[in-house]
């Protein structure tokens, strides 16, 4: 597999310094090994802490059911499903799979137009403030949203993107990314997730401010 990487930066929360990272246009065996050997144990440890603290099950991270190896195996080689990963200090910090073919916009101003749909996106457990205080790195989610916007632009979709948000991420997509919250998707298969969409103007504004909150 041929992988192209771009130089990006993440904020190390502990030191307050930025660190060099790489955005890859693929999810490789390295990412899947990181997910199995590093992410899953950390995620299970975080869930154990939530459980012992009496946090109800519905508030646990819902991505705990995601199997990145299975998702990647199904979609590898499909032009409709480009994948991305973010690597810092040799460790995978985030992964994302897009759908650039089968979804259309729902916002009235751009209804029916092509867009890039964020099929799956996940931050490494240690970067998630709801699981680790303080998180290790900040900026992973913003960089992956920025990559989705760039993918949309390259497809000729002018930055239009859409996604269903897990409840823990609603505030991030609304406030940090400036996306429009269309509300809970009426499709029971997506409940209780909110559907968010970004217009060309919102994408331009997000890129302009550098993806920062």
């Amino acid at each position, binding site marked *: 597999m041929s992988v192209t990487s771009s130089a990006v930066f993440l904020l190390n929360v502990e030191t307050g310094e930025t660190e060099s990272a790489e955005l890859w*246009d693929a999810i490789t065996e390295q990412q899947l090994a990181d997910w199995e050997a590093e992410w899953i144990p950390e995620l299970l440890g975080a869930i154990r802490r939530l459980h012992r603290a009496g946090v109800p099950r519905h508030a646990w991270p819902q991505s705990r059911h995601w199997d990145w190896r299975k998702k990647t195996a199904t979609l590898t080689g*499909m*032009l*409709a499903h480009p994948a991305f990963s973010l690597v810092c200090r040799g460790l995978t910090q985030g992964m994302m799979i897009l759908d650039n*073919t*089968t979804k259309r916009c729902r916002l009235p101003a751009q209804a029916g*137009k*092509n867009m890039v749909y964020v099929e799956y996106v996940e931050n490494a457990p240690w970067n998630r403030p709801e699981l680790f205080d303080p998180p290790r790195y900040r900026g992973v989610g913003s960089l992956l949203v920025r990559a989705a916007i760039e993918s949309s632009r390259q497809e*000729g979709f002018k930055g239009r993107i859409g996604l269903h948000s897990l409840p823990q991420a609603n505030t991030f997509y609304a406030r940090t990314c400036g996306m429009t919250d269309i509300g809970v998707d009426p499709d029971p298969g997506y409940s209780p997730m909110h559907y968010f969409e970004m217009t060309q103007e919102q994408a331009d504004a997000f890129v302009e401010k550098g993806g920062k909150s």
Partner: protein
Amino acid sequence: MATKRTMTLNLTDAEMRALENLCEKKDLNKTALLRQALRLYQFVEARIEKGEKLFFEDDRTKEKAEVMML
């Protein structure tokens, strides 16, 4: 960004008109539209190869018609 290669495409007048009409309707340039068509074709073929079927459903009557891919 992945490296891109250029190709020449020969189309009939009717095919070119269809392409241009779709480009206008979808607000895409010709390259973007043809890349979309390739993605969709590959996606549909992969699902059909797995034994799935492609249907169109009338939103009003819920009547389904299978699209036969040869």
